[in-house]
C-alpha cells in the first residue's frame, strides 16, 4: 500500500462568475498537517470540499496515495473524514445515538469504543443527552469524538475549533497530533491560531 500522501495539482474552481481557486497546488506527505488560512470568502471551504470530492474543479486534480481520486471516488471518500462548519448531528438523537448512526454507516463500532471516544473529548457525561439540549461547544466536542472514531487516514476539517473554549482548542490540537502520529494526514482551515497545532505546511488563500 502506497504511503498516505495527498496532492493537489493546479486546482481551478469557479463558483458562478467568481474564480475561487486559482491554481492551488500542494503536496502533503504522511504524518503532516496542512493549515489553510485566508479571509472570509477566500475559498477555504471550497478547497476542502474539492479535496473531499464534493465539488468538481474545472481544472486540476487531487491525488491520494498517488492515484487520482476520481478513479475511485467512493473508496477515497471512505478513507477520509470531513467536518464542516456545522457538526453533523441530529437534534433529536442523543450524543451516543448520533455517533452510532453516523459512524455506523462507515464502520461497525462497539459501545465500548463509543464511550471511550466521548471520554477522550470530555463529553462522557453528555452521551445520553439529546443533542438539542447541548450547547454549540458541546456539540462540537461530540462531532470531534465522531471524527476520531472514523479511523481514517485523511482528515479534512473546516474551522474545527469553532465555539470551543481554550481547553477545547487544545483538544483539537492534540487530536490532530495523535492523527499525525498514527501516520495520518490532516488539512485544517483555521481562522485564528490553534494552540497546540503543529502544522508543518501553511497555505494562505487570497480572496
Amino acid at each position, binding site marked *: 500500500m502506497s504511503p498516505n500522501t495527498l496532492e493537489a495539482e493546479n486546482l481551478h474552481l*469557479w*463558483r*458562478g*462568475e467568481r474564480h475561487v481557486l486559482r491554481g492551488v497546488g500542494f503536496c502533503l506527505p504522511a504524518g503532516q498537517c496542512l493549515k489553510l488560512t485566508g479571509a472570509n470568502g477566500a475559498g477555504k471551504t471550497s478547497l476542502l470540499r474539492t479535496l473531499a470530492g464534493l465539488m*468538481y474543479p474545472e481544472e486540476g486534480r487531487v491525488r491520494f496515495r498517488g492515484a487520482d481520486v476520481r478513479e475511485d471516488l467512493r473508496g477515497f471518500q471512505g478513507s477520509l473524514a470531513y467536518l464542516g462548519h456545522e457538526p453533523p448531528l441530529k437534534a433529536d438523537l442523543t450524543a451516543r445515538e448520533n455517533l452510532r448512526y453516523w459512524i455506523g454507516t462507515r464502520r461497525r463500532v462497539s459501545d465500548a469504543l463509543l464511550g471511550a471516544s466521548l471520554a477522550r473529548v470530555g463529553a462522557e457525561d453528555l452521551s445520553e443527552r439529546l443533542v438539542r439540549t447541548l450547547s454549540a461547544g458541546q456539540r462540537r466536542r461530540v462531532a470531534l469524538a465522531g471524527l476520531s472514531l472514523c479511523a481514517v487516514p485523511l482528515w479534512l476539517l473546516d474551522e474545527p475549533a469553532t465555539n470551543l473554549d481554550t481547553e477545547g482548542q487544545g483538544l483539537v490540537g492534540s487530536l490532530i497530533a495523535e492523527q499525525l502520529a498514527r501516520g495520518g494526514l490532516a488539512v485544517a482551515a483555521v481562522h485564528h491560531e490553534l494552540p497546540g497545532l503543529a502544522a508543518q505546511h501553511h497555505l494562505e488563500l487570497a480572496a
Partner: protein
Amino acid sequence: MNFVWFHRLGSPPYVYALAQRLTPWLAWPAALLILAGLWGGLVLAPPDYQQGDGFRIIYVHAPSAWMSLMVYTSMAVSAAVGLIWRIKVAHAVAAACAPIGASFTLAALVTGSLWGQPMWGTYWQWDPRLTSELVLLFLYLGYMGLRAGIEDTQRADRASAVLAVVGVVNVPVIHYSVTWWNSLHQAPSVMRLAKPSMAPAMLVPLLMMLAGFTLFFGAVLLVRLRAEILARERANPWLKEALAR
C-alpha cells in the same frame, strides 16, 4: 480527428461564432419551406371530404406537436451530455431549447383546440394527444421553473439536466397511460383529432411544414444559444473581443 471537432463544440467562443455563421443557412430555407407549405396546404390542397376546410389547421398543429416532442428530446439529450461529460455549452443548448419547446407545445394545444371547436362544439376535449401535450407543457414549465428557482447557474444546469432525463424517460410512460385511459372510456371517433387520410397533394405541404419547422427550430435555437452564451460568459475576456470585432 473527430475528437478535435467534438472538443471544439465544447468551447463557447467557437460555438458562438459557429452559431452566428449557421443561423442564416437555417433561417432562410425555413422561411421558404414554411411559406411554400402554407401555400400548398392552405390554398392548393383540396378540402377534406369529411372535415371540409377545417382540417387545414393540421398544417400548423401536427408540426407543432411533433416539434414539441422533438425539442424535449433534444433538450434531454444535450442536458445529459452536459451532465455526464460536464460540457457547459451543452447545458446552454438545453436552456435555450426549453422556451422554444414550450412555445411549440402551446401552439399545438391552441391549434388543437381551434381544430376541435368546429368538430366537437367545444374548445376542449380530453383527447389523448391533447392531454399528452398538456402534460408535456407542464414538464416544460417544471423544467423552466426549476432553472429559475436555483440561483447558481451551474447547479441549475445540473439539477434541471437530471429533471430533463427523468422527464424524457417518463414521457413514453405518461403517453401510454394517457392513451390507455382514454381508450377505456371509448369516445366516438369523431371526438378525436383524427388525421384525415392523406392524398399526396395534402401530404407534401405537411412534410414541407415539418421540415420548415425543424429548420426554424434550429435557427431560433442558435439565436437563443448565442444569447445564453452571452449571459453565461459575461465576465470572460474572449467575449469582449468577439463583440468588439
